[in-house]
C-alpha cells in the first residue's frame, strides 16, 4: 500500500524529539571536540592526541579497564551464584530483598556511606570507620583504604559499585533461572549428572542470553562510572576514571574541547556493547 509521504508526518514528532535531544547534542559534542578550550579555535585532532597520551588520561583508561573486568566479573558472577543458591533457601525473598536494597540508593549516597566505612583515623585515636575499627579490633593497624595505590583504593571503589549492582544482576538472573523447566534439571539429575554438571551443562546454556544482556548492561554502566569515584576520591591517588576526567575538564577546568573529545571516545567505546544488546534483544523477539 502506498501511503505517499504521510508516514513522515506521523514520524515527525518522534524525529523532532530525537533530533533535538539526541542527534543535535551528539553532533555538537563531536564538533566541539575539534575546537580549543573555549570552542573558538579549530585545533584538529589535538584534543584526541591529548586524551590518548596525557598521563592522567592513561591512568583513567587503565582504571576503567580494571573496573570493566573486576566489576563485571563480580556483579554478574555473584548475581548468578546468589540466584542459583538462594533458589534452594527458605527465606529467599527476604534475603533477595536485602541484597537488592542498595539499588534503591543513589550512587552519591552510596559513595558517602562507604566513605564512612573506609574512614581512616590514626592508630592512637578511636576508629570511626567500620572497616578500620574491625582491623584494629583484630590487632592490625588502620589502613588508608582510599589512599593505598594502586590496588587497595581502586578495589575499594569497585567494591562499592559491586555492592550497589549485585542485587540487580541477581534479580534478573533469578527470574531467568526460575524459567528453566524443572523437568530438564530433574532429567539431568536422573541421568546421573552431579550438581556442578547440571549447573554447567543445563543452567548456564539456558541462561546464556540473559547473562549476555546483564553483562552488557554492566559493561555499559561501568564505562560510564562517575559518581562513586567523584564523591569518594575525585580521582586522587591514581583512581581516576574517564567520566570523572570528562566532568573535571568540562566543569572545573573549562576545557570544553578536551571534555568533548573524552565524551566522544567514551561514546564510541560504548557503542559496540549497545549493538550487542540490541541484537540480542531482536533475536529474542524473533524467537517469540
Amino acid at each position, binding site marked *: 500500500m502506498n501511503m505517499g509521504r504521510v508516514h513522515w508526518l506521523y514520524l515527525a514528532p518522534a524525529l523532532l524529539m530525537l533530533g533535538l535531544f539526541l542527534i543535535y547534542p551528539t553532533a555538537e559534542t563531536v564538533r566541539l571536540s575539534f575546537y580549543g578550550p573555549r570552542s573558538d579555535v579549530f585545533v584538529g585532532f589535538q584534543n584526541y592526541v591529548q586524551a590518548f597520551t596525557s598521563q592522567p588520561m592513561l591512568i583513567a583508561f587503565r582504571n576503567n579497564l580494571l573496573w570493566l573486568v573486576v566489576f563485571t566479573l563480580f556483579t554478574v558472577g555473584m548475581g548468578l551464584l546468589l540466584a542459583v543458591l538462594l533458589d534452594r533457601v527458605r527465606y529467599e525473598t527476604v534475603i533477595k530483598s536485602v541484597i537488592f536494597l542498595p539499588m534503591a540508593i543513589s550512587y552519591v549516597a552510596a559513595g558517602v556511606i562507604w566513605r564512612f566505612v573506609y574512614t581512616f583515623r590514626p592508630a592512637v585515636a578511636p576508629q570511626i570507620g567500620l572497616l578500620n575499627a574491625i582491623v584494629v579490633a583484630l590487632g592490625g593497624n588502620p589502613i588508608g583504604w582510599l589512599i593505598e595505590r594502586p590496588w587497595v583504593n581502586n578495589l575499594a571503589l569497585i567494591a562499592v559499585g559491586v555492592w550497589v549492582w549485585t542485587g540487580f544482576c541477581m534479580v534478573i538472573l533469578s527470574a531467568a533461572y526460575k524459567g528453566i523447566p524443572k523437568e530438564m534439571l530433574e532429567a539431568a539429575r536422573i541421568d546421573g549428572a552431579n550438581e556442578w554438571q547440571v549447573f554447567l551443562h543445563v543452567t548456564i546454556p539456558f541462561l546464556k542470553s540473559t547473562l549476555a544482556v546483564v553483562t552488557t548492561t554492566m559493561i555499559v554502566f561501568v564505562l560510564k562510572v562517575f559518581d562513586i569515584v567523584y564523591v569518594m576520591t575525585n580521582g586522587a591517588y591514581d583512581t581516576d576514571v574517564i567520566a570523572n576526567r570528562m566532568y573535571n575538564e568540562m566543569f572545573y*577546568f573549562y576545557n570544553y574541547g578536551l571534555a568533548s573529545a573524552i565524551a566522544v571516545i567514551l561514546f564510541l567505546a560504548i557503542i559496540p556493547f549497545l549493538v550487542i544488546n540490541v541484537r540480542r534483544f531482536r533475536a529474542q523477539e524473533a524467537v517469540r
Partner: protein
Amino acid sequence: MVKRLAVGLLLVGLVAGLAQGAVTIMVLWSGAELEAFQKVTAAFQAKTGITVRVESVGRELPGILATRLAAGNPPDLAAMPNPGQMAEFVARGALIPVGGIVDLTQFPKAFVDLATVDGKVYGIFISADLKSLVWYNPDALYAEGLAPAHTWNELLYITETLAARGKTPWAVGLESGAASGWPGTDWIEDIMLRTAGPELYDKWVNHEIPWTHPAVKRAFELFGAIVRNEAYVYGGTTGALSINFGDSPAVLWDKPAGAYLHRQATFIKSFIAGAHPELDLDRDVAFFVFPPIDPKWGTPLLGAGDLISAFRDTLEVRSFLQYLASPEAQGIWCGALGKLATNVNVDPGIYPDKLTAEAAEILKGAEIFRFDASDLMPAAVGSGAFWKGVLDYVSGVPLDRVLADIEAAARAAYGP
C-alpha cells in the same frame, strides 16, 4: 480599546517594576557563612527595598555557573571561587567591569590588582583571609618548655624536639572532598614566597618558570621534610591525607594534646571553636606568623579573599555592589565570621575577638602580600594538577615525577 491597552501597559509596567526591584546572587557559602551573608542582604533590603535572592549552590558553583551561563541565564551576580576562575569568565565575555560602579580607592591596591584583567577591574573583594599563620595551644606548647618560632630553624627545632620526646609536632589535614590537597598548596606557596621571593613567585604563578625549576622543587622539599615525615605528623602521611582540613586542628586542644602546631588561614578559628566549644578563644588559642626562611625575603604574607563579580549591569546590581563594598556591609559580614575586611575604612572594633583583630593588624602591616597562587593559576593547574600533585607527593610519589606531571598539565593549560 485604547483604555484597555493603557490598563494592559500599566499592568505590564507594574509587573516589570516589581521584577526589577530584585537581584539574584549565586554563592558557594553554606552554614555560618550563608547566614552571615543573609544578614548583609537583609540590611541591604531594609535600606533600599531591593530584594536579594541568594542561591547557595555550594562547591559545585563553577559547574552550575558555567552551565547557566551557557544557557544564557546567569545570575545577576556571583561569588567567584578565585581570581583565576573570574579571569575564565572574563575571557568568555560574561562579566561587567566594576570600575565605574564602585569607588575602588576604598581598597588596598593589592586587592584591586588581583581583580584586574587587561587593565579593567571585574570584581570586588568583600573580605580576606590571612593564610600565613601557625596555630598552637599556648598551654600545651609552653608545658613542653617551647615557645612560638620566629625563624625557620626555631620551627624545625620545635618539630624535632617534640618528635624526639615521642610526641607528634604537627596536625595536618589535606582532605577536602573533591578539593583535597589545597591545604598543602598553601604550605608550598608560603614556603615559595620565603625561599624564592615575590618576583619568582609571580613568575611561577604565570608559568614563566617551569614546575621543574629548582626553586619550586625546593619549596616542595621543605614542605615534604615536615609533612612526609611519619613521626612529625598526626597519623603519619595517611593521617594527613585522610583527615579533613576542618577537623585536623582539633587534636591540638585534646587532653593530652595529639599535636602541637597547625598551619592554616584565619578562617580555621571557627572550626576550632566548633570542635572545642569550651575554649576561651582569647586565652586558649593563639597563632604566630609562619616564620621567614631565607632572611633576604623577610616575612611575606599569603592570603585569599571572597570575590564578587557581576554578570548584568542594572541599577539594582550597581546599588548592591556599592553596598557590598561599603564599610557597613563588611562590618556585618566580617564581624559575624571573623574574616578580615578589605575596605580600609572599616572600624577594627567590629572584629569578634582579639585573634581576628590581631590578624587584621598583621595584614595591614604587610610589606609583601601575595594572593594564594593556586587560586590565580588556570583551574586545570591551580584547582587540578597542583592539588593532585600535593596528594601524590605526600602519598609517596617521587618529587621529580610529581613536578613533571604538573608541568605537563600546565603546558596544556597555559597554552603556547
